[in-house]
């Protein structure tokens, strides 16, 4: 088990593995199997006949159109920087393309099993997209490696931020103005010349300073009130020791911090309001303005 905190908690409870991983339904297991099967195709031979790229902006549009055609909801591109690569790993590429698939909010709010299935469905889709997109770029004559649940050497959040998907929120995930934090990624690193997207700020960090809805709805009380600063960005660091008993040591997944975030209201106004009304009835906090 790669996560040392989870491993030590599992050991302390005399378990062999986290229950969350042992209790997969056949459908969830099939999704997990799909990225294991695609892992050997993360990289591959490059077409020796390289396409000349005179216009990186036009090429970026082409790559983005391809990712959307493959089923991505959002696509972004940036230069691959050292802090985006896992410590101790080497990724010898200049750019990273990120393709995200949004979760269906109508599904995820129906309890932990529904979240688990939808999360794994989107991860499986992202794996397919990253694998196909990597092959597409290699066919243009440029090296490319897919990064997904079947194997990855890149860090999602700094890449999300750099391509302008959004800002880091109190619950520890990046918040997009349309999809909240309800989306999952796949990546392709490459040397194909591409125009870069830029970070985009729209007030998430200030909003999170006053909102607190995720913190007050967390069943494990794992989201802190206070933030720390990392290179000028506010980070509310989730206490994994409190989060994992709800999100990993049980049979099912937990996703509540993402589901209650008011940024979901833009994409699903009625569903979000109905969901929060139910939460309010059982004693949880809803956004101040209601």
């Amino acid at each position, binding site marked *: 088990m790669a996560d040392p*905190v989870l491993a030590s908690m599992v050991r302390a409870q005399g378990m062999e593995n986290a229950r969350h991983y042992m209790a997969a339904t056949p459908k969830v297991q099939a999704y997990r199997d799909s990225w294991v099967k695609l892992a050997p195709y993360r990289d591959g031979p490059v077409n020796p006949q390289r396409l000349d790229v005179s216009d990186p902006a036009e090429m970026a549009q082409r790559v983005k159109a391809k990712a959307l055609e493959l089923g991505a909801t959002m696509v972004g591109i940036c230069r691959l920087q050292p802090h985006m690569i896992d*410590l101790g790993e080497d990724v010898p590429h200049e750019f990273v393309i990120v393709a995200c698939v949004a979760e269906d909010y109508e599904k995820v709010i129906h309890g932990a099993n529904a979240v688990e299935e939808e999360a794994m469905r989107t991860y499986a889709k992202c794996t397919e997209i990253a694998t196909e997109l990597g092959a597409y770029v290699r066919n243009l004559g440029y090296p490319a490696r897919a990064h997904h649940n079947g194997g990855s050497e890149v860090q999602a959040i700094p890449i999300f931020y750099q391509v302008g998907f959004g800002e880091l929120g109190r619950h520890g995930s990046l918040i997009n103005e349309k999809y909240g934090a309800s989306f999952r990624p796949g990546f392709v690193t490459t040397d194909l010349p591409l125009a870069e997207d830029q970070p985009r700020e729209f007030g998430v960090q200030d909003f999170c300073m006053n909102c607190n809805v995720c*913190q*007050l709805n967390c069943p494990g*009380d794992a989201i802190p009130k206070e933030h720390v600063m*990392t290179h000028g960005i506010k980070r509310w660091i989730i206490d*994994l020791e409190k989060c994992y008993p709800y999100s990993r040591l049980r049979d099912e997944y937990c996703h509540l911090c993402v589901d209650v975030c008011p940024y979901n209201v833009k994409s699903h106004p009625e569903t979000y309001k109905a969901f929060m009304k139910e939460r309010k009835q*059982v*004693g*949880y906090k809803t956004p101040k303005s209601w």
Partner: protein
Amino acid sequence: MEKLYVNEIRPGGEVSTVGLFYSRAEAKTIIAKLQSIPEKADCRYEIVEAAAALPSTNPPKQKREAANE
């Protein structure tokens, strides 16, 4: 479980939190990895104990259950 912040201190004095770690050994491993990066050769690192958790402000389980009945 022990809770420790690792802070990075840049030559100009800017302090940046690397993350929250749950054992001194894990914190030291991260620091060693960061120190092996040439661009971070001038940075210093400190391990700081995280403040004890504040009492929960979430409604107690009994209250939620009572409201649910």
